[in-house]
């Protein structure tokens, strides 16, 4: 028997003049909405302006697709569940139905509807019972067609519509101020063995841009997918380009049909095995099967739209010109000018993200506003940065990127909304390069010309120059740590170490942030004491200091001196000595797995160099030094050598260089072997014969 279909509308704007929200938390709908300069006049009341927080006006509203999903036959679904469980006995949960439909209308409004049935097979998957769908008043609305729990015995528990709520979710991690809300409910009585099934529709009656339409869909997850379908339903004459990625042969069925003036594209995958996530993988879109679709033949439309917003925001006001002039006064070269503005922006505009509409969503706020407020997000700062640089006579543009830990690699042939981040491209006479002035809420610390490693090796969309280009990954030398250890051992086996380190690139940025965060000397001293203690339980900090910690424009260096009593282990006449710190620094936790199915991903390249000298007591005779080593595969290389020098001095130098950011699975075993060889190499001690036998 066909069950009733409940329909619940998150927020209906159709038929209303406006919704008025007051500062005291109350809200109401009104047909009359006028303002006389002091009061807001509504059909409810005349309200002093100061009491009104927000007004959302009536829009045309959206339409349902007309293809409201109805629930599957319960017995059919139970049968499907039983078969799936048999087929995937180890599964913690199984997605029985995963059916999405994107509909684009002639007027540019669009809907996304989704029908899901999920078999819960473990405690951890009970969270599926909680539904959340994001919406923004005035832009879109959410309709829930139905939701229910199906018990193994066929009993059905339908959603009680009174439990559907609107909530404003908090945004953790970054300082974000937005207008989004959730429609949410939690289905009751959900136990292991139950099926959770629902269908809903997200009606976007006011999309960011009615000209642009794109869609994406994954056909694999960390649970088995029994039936997975994407339908895209567009006007017959709509230009559509689509691509399937990482799809094995025979996995996906595709068909296209024209029906009543509509073009309907359908992709179906059945009985897809789950994938096993691996740590340090790139974003899932880089390796899981998925389909991407766009109605843009090229980037022209996107560039036009982005550039129009950007141009509106990048006006050089007298205040901006004055600031650019003052920051670049007294400096001679373009590089010095860029650096001066880069540092000022990182340190004087703190990170806060405020998003209210499509324009602030993609292009932030006007440069003058960001300057006035003293805060902004990546987009705001990229806009202000480019504007200040232009005011200083340097060509620069804001560019959009998808950070390499979060966003799948862009396919430049698929134009559309792209990225989660905005940085700046700078052009000089013979070169162009990228800078990221975003920093954090507590300041930015990138030393020119280094920039955030999350931007390395990804595409940048520059709508001012109408180009989509990849940002190169810096050479290992530009992302390098260099450690100098000047060491001496006395007759009693006490080791004294004078340490100095130098940094380049993102590591320097992170370290500068860290030590600025621990600003108090008392706390810094404790941190250094802990650092040396992790080298040896008998290590005692003698002194520490920084070079250029506050001066973002100069290379950061740390100086530490410490002493370790009884550092040398005596076994009979043999003294066993390890170089402190080096082995730990060259241990690679990321290669714990013997094999990988997916790439191993880093943010950027890496270089590590040690230059160490060890002075021994005069009557100690080095008996064994680890042999020199040179190791190389395309992704990484390492060389190390010990040499004996006059004055009973042992010198050690090495260089680790990893130019690649991504290690492909087929290359992983040899890559792993090389890294483990480095670690093993540093488990070899220096053996010294001690005159006079055992200590």
């Amino acid at each position, binding site marked *: 028997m066909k069950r009733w279909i409940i329909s619940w509308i998150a927020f209906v704007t159709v038929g209303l003049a406006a919704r008025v929200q007051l500062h005291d938390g109350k809200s109401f709908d009104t047909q009359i909405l006028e303002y006389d300069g002091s009061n807001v006049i509504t059909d409810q009341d005349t309200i002093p302006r100061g009491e009104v927080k927000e007004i959302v006006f009536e829009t045309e509203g959206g339409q349902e697709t007309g293809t409201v999903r109805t629930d599957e036959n319960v017995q059919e679904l139970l049968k499907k569940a039983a078969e799936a469980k048999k087929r995937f006995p180890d599964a913690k949960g199984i997605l029985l139905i995963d059916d999405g439909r994107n509909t684009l209308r002639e007027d540019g409004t669009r809907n996304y509807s989704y029908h899901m049935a999920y078999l819960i097979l473990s405690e951890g998957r009970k969270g599926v019972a909680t539904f959340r769908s994001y919406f923004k008043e005035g832009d879109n609305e959410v309709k829930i067609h139905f939701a229910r729990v199906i018990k193994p015995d066929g009993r059905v528990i339908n959603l009680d519509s009174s439990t559907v709520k609107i909530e404003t979710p908090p945004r953790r991690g970054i300082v974000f101020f937005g207008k989004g809300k959730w429609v949410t409910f939690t289905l009751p009585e959900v136990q292991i063995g139950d099926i959770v099934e629902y269908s809903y529709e997200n009606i976007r009656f006011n999309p960011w841009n009615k000209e642009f339409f794109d869609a994406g869909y994954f056909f694999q997850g960390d649970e088995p997918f029994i039936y997975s379908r994407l339908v895209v339903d567009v006007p017959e004459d709509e230009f559509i380009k689509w691509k399937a990625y990482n799809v094995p042969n025979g996995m996906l069925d595709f068909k296209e049909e024209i029906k009543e003036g509509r073009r309907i594209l359908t992709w179906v995958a059945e009985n897809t095995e789950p994938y096993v996530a691996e740590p340090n993988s790139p974003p899932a879109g880089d390796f899981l099967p998925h389909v991407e679709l766009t109605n843009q033949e090229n980037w022209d439309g996107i560039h036009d739209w982005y550039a129009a917003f950007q141009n509106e925001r990048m006006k050089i006001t007298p205040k901006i010109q004055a600031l650019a002039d003052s920051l670049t006064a007294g400096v001679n070269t373009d590089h010095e000018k860029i650096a001066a503005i880069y540092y000022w922006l990182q340190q004087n505009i703190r990170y806060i993200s405020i998003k209210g509409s499509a324009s602030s969503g993609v292009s932030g706020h006007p440069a003058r506003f960001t300057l006035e407020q003293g805060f902004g997000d990546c987009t705001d700062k990229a806009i202000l940065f480019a504007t200040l640089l232009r005011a200083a006579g340097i060509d620069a543009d804001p560019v959009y990127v998808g950070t390499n830990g979060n966003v799948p690699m862009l396919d430049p042939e698929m134009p559309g909304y792209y990225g989660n981040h905005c940085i700046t491209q700078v052009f000089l006479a013979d070169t162009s390069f990228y800078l990221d002035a975003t920093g954090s809420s507590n300041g930015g610390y990138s030393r020119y010309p280094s920039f955030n490693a999350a931007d390395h090796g990804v595409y940048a969309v520059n709508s001012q120059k109408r180009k989509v280009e990849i940002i190169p990954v810096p050479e290992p030398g530009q992302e390098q740590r260099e450690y100098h250890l000047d060491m001496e051992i006395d007759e009693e086996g006490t080791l004294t170490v004078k340490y100095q380190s130098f940094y380049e690139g993102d590591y320097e940025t992170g370290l500068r942030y860290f030590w600025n965060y621990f600003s108090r000397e008392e706390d810094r001293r404790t*941190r250094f004491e802990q650092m040396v203690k992790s080298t040896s339980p008998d290590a005692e900090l003698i002194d520490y200091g920084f070079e250029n910690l506050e001066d973002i424009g100069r290379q950061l260096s740390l100086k530490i001196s410490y002493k370790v009593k009884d550092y040398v282990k005596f076994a009979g006449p043999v003294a066993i000595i390890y170089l402190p710190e080096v082995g730990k620094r060259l241990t690679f936790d990321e290669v714990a797995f013997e094999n990988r199915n997916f790439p191993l991903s880093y943010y950027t390249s890496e270089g590590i160099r040690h230059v160490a000298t060890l002075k021994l007591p005069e009557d100690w005779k080095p008996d064994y030094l680890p042999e020199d080593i040179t190791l190389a595969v395309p992704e990484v290389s390492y060389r190390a050598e010990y040499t004996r020098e006059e004055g009973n001095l042992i010198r050690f130098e090495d260089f680790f260089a990893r130019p690649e950011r991504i290690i492909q699975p087929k290359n992983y075993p040899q890559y792993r072997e090389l890294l483990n060889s480095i670690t093993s190499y540093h488990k070899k001690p220096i053996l010294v014969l001690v005159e006079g036998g055992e200590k």
Partner: protein
Amino acid sequence: MRRLVPLAILLLAAMGCRQAVRTSHDVIYLLSGEEKIGALERITADSLWFATEEGTIACAKSEVRGLDLPQPRQGEGWKTLKDIDDPLLKELFTNLTLPQTDARYVNLYVEHNFILHEDGRFEKRMRVIRYVSAESGKGTAANNTWSYLADRSYARLDFARSYSPDGAVSHITESAINRASSYPAPAEYSNLTEIRIAVPESRVGSVLDFQFSTIQNVADSIHPISEEIVLADRQPTMTEIIRVEQPQGGPVEVYASTGQKPERETRKGREILTWTIQNQPPMRFELMIPPSADYLPHFIVAEKKDWHCIAAALRAHLDKAIQPGERLTALVDSLTQNLTASEEKARALYEFVAVSIHSVGPPLDSYSYVPTPAETVLVRGFANNLDRASLLYALMKQAGLEADLVLIRDRASGQVVPTFPTLGQLNKALVLFEDRIYLDPSSNVAFGTLSDQDAMGLSLSSGKLKKTPLHTPNEEATVTRTEAQLGTDGSLNLRMDVEFNGQNSAWWKRYLKPLSPAELRQEAEELASYIHPNARLQDFSFNGIEPLDEEVSYTLKVSIPGYATRAGDYLILYLPGVEHSAYQVGATDRAYPVDRVTRSADILNLDLELPPGAELIYYPQDVSISNPYDFYAAAFVQPRRGVLQFSENMQVLKPWIPPQDYPKYKELVQGMARLSQEPIVLKLR
């Protein structure tokens, strides 16, 4: 053809020519996707006028998506320091000597006001005036959050502004204020709400000034006035004021952990108590610290009652919530049929709640002290801590078992102040079975496993305070048994069996349970790599993951080529799986106690078979260190030629170590780390 929406915004040149446009931070959102900042001027039946810096735009209402209008706030007319008419600020700026500091910011002035009005409304306000002293402090100083329970109170930001070093005043914009639910889903538990703000113009040298306030509408025994303040800022505070104002003889009292007496003042029939704390130092960064309320100045502002009254009020609500309906009755019957012993029945009921009621939502002090009816919880199938415990209590009562609901203060929040009875101190519910076993019906926790040990709580049945037990080290032990064979070439074959007990077992169960077989293999490979990067996993098993009552254990079999280093005729190796760091005792001294939360034991037995003919020429000496808080012993035995046995036993006897005894702890940890850095040296023939 698709309809294109024209940007029908008309720039009114005549109006745009005005020299001065009223400055405001109203925001207009247009259907084109554009937004503008300026001042709303007028709305008529079909049009709207909005002034921006570039001139006034006029548009049809149908082109507009919405408007944000800022709330008028105290002092919003101030443009420069000269405009300020707030006596407190005036005085502060007149007498202000900016501190020389290495802190990221300095709290110049913090004021907490608690006001009980005649009509029963309770108001709390917090004002903070803060000097930004370092780049790294500007965000933390300026981005702030204020929480309140939306079902019984309403909060607002009274003002937020900054004063720049050149004397300009910047006021917060409405768009930099957000109100959100802290636990938005399930919505059944969503009433804890937070206001987040970002004060503008926070730079080195700025002074920030903001005030939040909350009006609590309901203040009865189950929705108590109860506020806690711990002076635990990571940055220094020059002046902090706690002020309580109420009708003379009112019910609000204050607990001050320092014993500091307030200044008393009576004004127009109202009593005002003021505590002033000067020059509160910043909190140091230390590892393994207890909850800050246990060692830093701590104030509680509450209606002081006696524990019996609090228990009685809660009991009345609990009694209502546990009324059995058909579902509950039938459930108890089915779960306990054929069981006779009371503990068997308790275990069955406990297991039902732990496995079948999905754990969600906030702790009870962030939601409500009134339990949801047990029948409702059964229908929902999900519940927060209080509702899970109440359901278990209801099931046990229905089964005729002896049970008590005990509200404790969880270990992470610090200890209960028993002499200051107030409901607000309690934030977690346990069920006490037969006055001997505390039950915490959280997911994947075995019957009787307790994370909040040695915690004080209120028994609702007796109205008395009780303490949860502190388990013995063996009840919380991790036991490792390793057998290893070393080859002449330095390779090592190893079998390691690890068994967890108590909380460790519960942690591993929670962690391992969601993993698929392929993910368990990944986990085993990671564990093997911790022994040595070259370890090759030969075999593994994880046990006790599913059954609630079984402890978790695992077995690894690995081979490690090149485990021992060959250097000339020598083979040098370290004890496999024995790695202790002295990192946590790096600090020379401590200001705060060391807190290990519970007792525990780590026991390891290792048999190492040496290569044939190898001569053992060096191995570490035995170690034995003990103090009142810990015990550590490590010993080597050669039971026969070719075999070296190692045993190690580390026990936490008392979790809490006062700062003055930190050197004893340090000595013990260093001793352990020293041993793990000692090599074993063999000479090959």
